[in-house]
């Protein structure tokens, strides 16, 4: 089975979404680490 463009897009969206959210919470956690 070949990885299709659709597969690549879904894979990228899923990982991209998770990485984006991880980055967001990490930045917020660092900014508010004293609380």
């Amino acid at each position, binding site marked *: *089975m*070949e*990885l*299709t463009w*659709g*597969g*690549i*897009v*879904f*894979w990228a*969206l*899923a*990982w991209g*979404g*998770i*990485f984006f*959210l*991880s980055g967001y*919470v990490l930045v*917020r*956690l660092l*900014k*508010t*680490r004293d*609380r």
Partner: protein
Amino acid sequence: MHLGAEPLGTAAPKADLMEHKRERWASRLGLILAAAGNAVGLGNFLRFPVQAVGNGGGAFMIPYFSALILLGIPLMWIEWIIGRRGGRMGHSSTPGMFAALWRHPAAKYLGALGLFLSLTVMIYYVYVESWALAYSLFSLLGYYSGIGDLAEMSGFLRSYQGLNPEGPFATVATAYLFLLVTLFINFAILYRGISRGIELLAKVAMPLLFLFAVVLVVRVFTLGTPDPSLPERSVWSGFAFLWNPRFEELGHTSVWLAAAGQVFFTLSVGMGTLQTYASYLRDDQDIALSGLSTSTLNEFVEVVLGASIAIPVAVAFFGLQATQEIARGGTFNLGFVTMPIVFTLLPQGELLGMLWFGLLFFAGITSSVAMGQPLIAFLQEECGLTRKRAVLLLAAVVFAAVQWVVFYYGYGFDHEMDFWAGTFGLAVFALIETILLCWVFGIDRAWEELHRGAAIRVPVAFKWIMKYVTPGYLILLLAIWTLDEALPKLRLQGVPLQDVPYRWQSRGLMLLLLAGILAAVAWAWRRRREA
């Protein structure tokens, strides 16, 4: 709507607060790692990839993320709100938390369901967790290194479970020994308490789990095509199998149900455990960002790491068709049959096997201690037991009940517990807590609670999602589950005749546990009234 809920910040049982100096988390990092450890479990590495490939591949992520946003994350916040507020009132378990939300005699009994679910799931979960501990040692010692095919490895697992006397294990004694060790570790951690036990475990186990998973994922990506004569068997075929979308499957209700079910399992919501963890926060400590961080960390482990190990490896070594059959055979087959064979074929396979089962054990134990803590908190705070006695009593109950799981394994005893407590019960409990917080206590006050000391401002859309969409989603989910699965399972449809007595014994045990917990709740409240 405020149906008699007590005003915010009042009516804390001051006597109890005086009696018990509340435990606290030592750091926010420790709390987030412990809460993420609670959420990250065996399901992240074994169940998610199986669900994804069986329900539309990449397209599965559409219902999955929908359920995460409309169900998972709102429920996470709902549980953190209930938990931190409960802690302020002097309660670290759901009977007291619910009684503080809704001044009605029935509230504490609804909360008792949280104790029942976490206890029941813990009883069979620790057994599977002990397999991971045993297999990590077997891997290191090369105990299964001579086994080269799926049938033989399956026989090895069945022999370990005491179901195949002709295998290397004549009896279930080895599995029993590892179970005892696992139980001892669990209860020793629970005995040490929140900051010195659970938090310390999370601070050690979660980074190790993360490290082990990253090493394995890197190894998977560098596997390529293990046998060049079979070019269709490659990790990229595995990723294609996992991520190529099959949109036609999105028309099936079962796919949306599977996605919602997976979100429940993976976040460990609807079990009464997150509320307990949140109760050890101070009133001014953030829950909005902590809840979101817990969900995000869990999703990272599931979608990025968990999805990139078992399925691509199985496809690379056994091909698509065999992997589909393995996945259909059950989630444990993938982890405990397929993966060990792969490790026997790889250089440094012993070490990789130890890492794989080590990470499963860490994923398991950080979840199982979370299941034990609500019971310990209840016995201490509501029943007045010392921590030592509470831990001993819980250990005795779990030890007694797990005997059935061990000796009746293979007869579906654990399947009954997994469906009624570990699947259906979670959705029922989630619906109850959502209605109690967002409708009885009131969404405006819940929203205010969520933002007290918050490090982020949650988009206001979630206020309406929590009030309308989440309970609506849960009601729909429960209605379809009841018709499609619960009723046939209640009637034991499709269950082999020889398993029927064991299934009924499993139901009997669950009813006994529920009755015991309800009686303990009634006794605790009577004791409080008399005091």
